[in-house]
């Protein structure tokens, strides 16, 4: 007797455990940024570029929208449109990662590193693990895009795409929290 889609249920539980993981990293960031002392050196205020990151943030949020569109096309069996929206999602996610890579390169060349002070340590830990999750999502989405050409649209593929979508939206939500906490507060 099956009650729920296995893949979607499994990924939902997985996402719950990931939420706890990010919760602890976010708590560490808040603790050192607002309750402890990050020590002299770089801070969010003097090293980050919120307007630029806002652009990449919009890309990531938009990618959730395009993935949602892709899922709707899939439900309506519009295969070509589905592939286009999915490819768009992958493109937007890749733009976000490229933005993060640029940001990291700039910071590191400006000697903002994990060993400098606690801002560096918490910033790279938090955004680094998030970026790693985006990367994993991109790999998964790309695999599914390829699978639709190789294997077509079986029940397994459809439920798998639904499961990856849950993960992708989650990673997106985590970024909204991180962006608000790390970047937007600079403008306060």
């Amino acid at each position, binding site marked *: *007797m*099956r*009650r*729920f889609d*296995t893949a979607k*249920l*499994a990924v939902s*539980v*997985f996402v*719950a*455990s*990931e939420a*706890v*993981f990010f*919760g*602890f*990293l976010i708590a*560490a960031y808040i*603790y*050192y940024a607002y309750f*402890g*002392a*990050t*020590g002299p050196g770089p801070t969010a205020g003097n090293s980050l570029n919120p307007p630029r990151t806002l652009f990449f943030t919009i890309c990531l949020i938009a990618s959730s929208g395009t993935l949602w569109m892709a899922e709707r096309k899939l439900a309506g069996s519009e295969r070509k449109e589905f592939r286009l929206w999915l490819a768009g999602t992958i493109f937007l996610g890749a733009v976000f990662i490229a933005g993060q890579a640029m940001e990291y390169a700039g910071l590191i060349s400006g000697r903002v*590193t*994990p*060993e400098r*002070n*606690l801002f*560096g*340590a*918490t910033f790279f*830990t938090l955004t680094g*693990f998030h970026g790693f999750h985006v990367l994993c999502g991109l790999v998964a989405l790309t695999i599914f895009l390829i699978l639709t050409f190789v294997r077509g649209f079986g029940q397994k593929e459809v439920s798998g795409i639904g499961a990856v979508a849950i993960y992708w939206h989650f990673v997106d939500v985590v970024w909204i929290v991180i962006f608000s906490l790390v970047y937007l507060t600079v403008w306060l």
Partner: protein
Amino acid sequence: MDHKRIGILYLSTTLVFFCIGGIEALLMRIQLAWPDNHFLSPDAYDQVFTMHGTTMVFLVVVPLLLGLANYLTPLMIGARDMALPRLNAFSYWVSLFGGILLYFSFIDGHAPDAGWFSYTPLSEKGFSTRNGLDYWALALLGIGVGTVATAINLIVTIINLRTEGLTIRRLPLFVWMVLVNSFLIIAALPALNASLVMLLIDRQLSAHFFLNLGGGSPILWQHYFWAFGHPEVYIMVLPAFGIISEVVPVFSRKPIFGYGFVAGSTVAIALLSLGVWAHHMFAVGLGHAWDYAFGASSLLIAVPTGVKIFNWIATMWGGSIQFTTSMLFALAFLFSFTIGGLSGVTFATFPIDWQTTDTYYVVAHMHYVLFGGTLFAVMAGVYYWFPKITGRMLSERLGRVHFWLMFLGFHMTFFIQHFLGLDGMPRRVYTYPNLPGWGAMNLISTIGAFVMGISVLVLLANVWISLHSGEQAGDNPWNAWTLEWATSSPPPEHNFNRVPPVRSPRPLWDLAHPQGGRA
């Protein structure tokens, strides 16, 4: 990728690690047998106690319970396999890889030596300069990932693959506890993973999350570690409660007393366990408000736990009790776990904790909970389910020898440590001066440890003999009532030819009594 084979892999791997961890324990007891002993150097002693604790917690108790859950859950809910068989295999191998990585540290020259909870700053690069702690953190990350993956798998399996009619109120209590436990793993294990990556970033990228230098906070490590570590204590005992809730009714020939309370109190324990972590930190000086709050929440846990103890006793009350080896271990669990629970309550009273923390009183307490509690329950489960898993009975005669040696050896080793602790003997120190009574008490403790060591040899002999010439078990040697006994022993790869209908928590009893009636 069959869940039964993976379950057996888990169980046999943990048996190997159990023997390794046990030998480490014996090395410590030899060193402590008399005052001013120099059998082990202080440095070697630190490595041995760290490896003993880490091994027993992460490579024995947790995977032992996960292995049993892996083998039994699909059978008990009438399913063909776990919901995600490949993920299941991944969990096992990634955990085993973690275990091998941990022990590889010996080959690399130096095992971790900062205790199983690796308090910072001791575990930081400046104080532990060699690679042991890096192996420790990486090994635990592997095991942590594997444990979370298994929990996901168990949750999906139990939610999705129950057979027709097996509603949540008819679920075998072992499965109930496994389900609650899996949610607890999801809530707690990621805290360990987060702490470990921060520690690794400190050690490898020279950050200072947990170093005072530059504003880091060693106390944060304690908060994070115990936010995982205290739920972990319940992760290590809830499935054991489940085993007891299966074994006690069957050998009392009565249904469990207060099914709803046993299941519900488990949920209460799981929720409470998330809010008590700082009772490991009373000696830190968090302030009275925190001490009161965490003392009170810790005391509260005694309530649902007590409910369970009363339920099990009430189940036995008026039953026709069969004193099989399995039941003897279940009774030993009740006895020892209650003692461990009571000493636990004394810790929640934080002025007492200030006196007893980091003494042998703590060592005694946690071994009463983990060995006298969980391990005795697992032994009850091993004698109970071994016939199902292998198709052969374990010898009851050898079983009794094993039981009495282990029971007496256990209490001989650990009961006396309460007094050593109250007398002020600190834990984790490689030797002690010849204070009045300390030498004698430690010697008794060491002799007890060796009695336990012999009992494990008896168990191994029993398993060996049984596998070669044990009595055939048949489908249902104990006249038990849950679904795993409705198939052959060992079960075929597809588990069931036909799953019997489920109309109550005891489907096989219903099958034997089609007209209904009382137990």
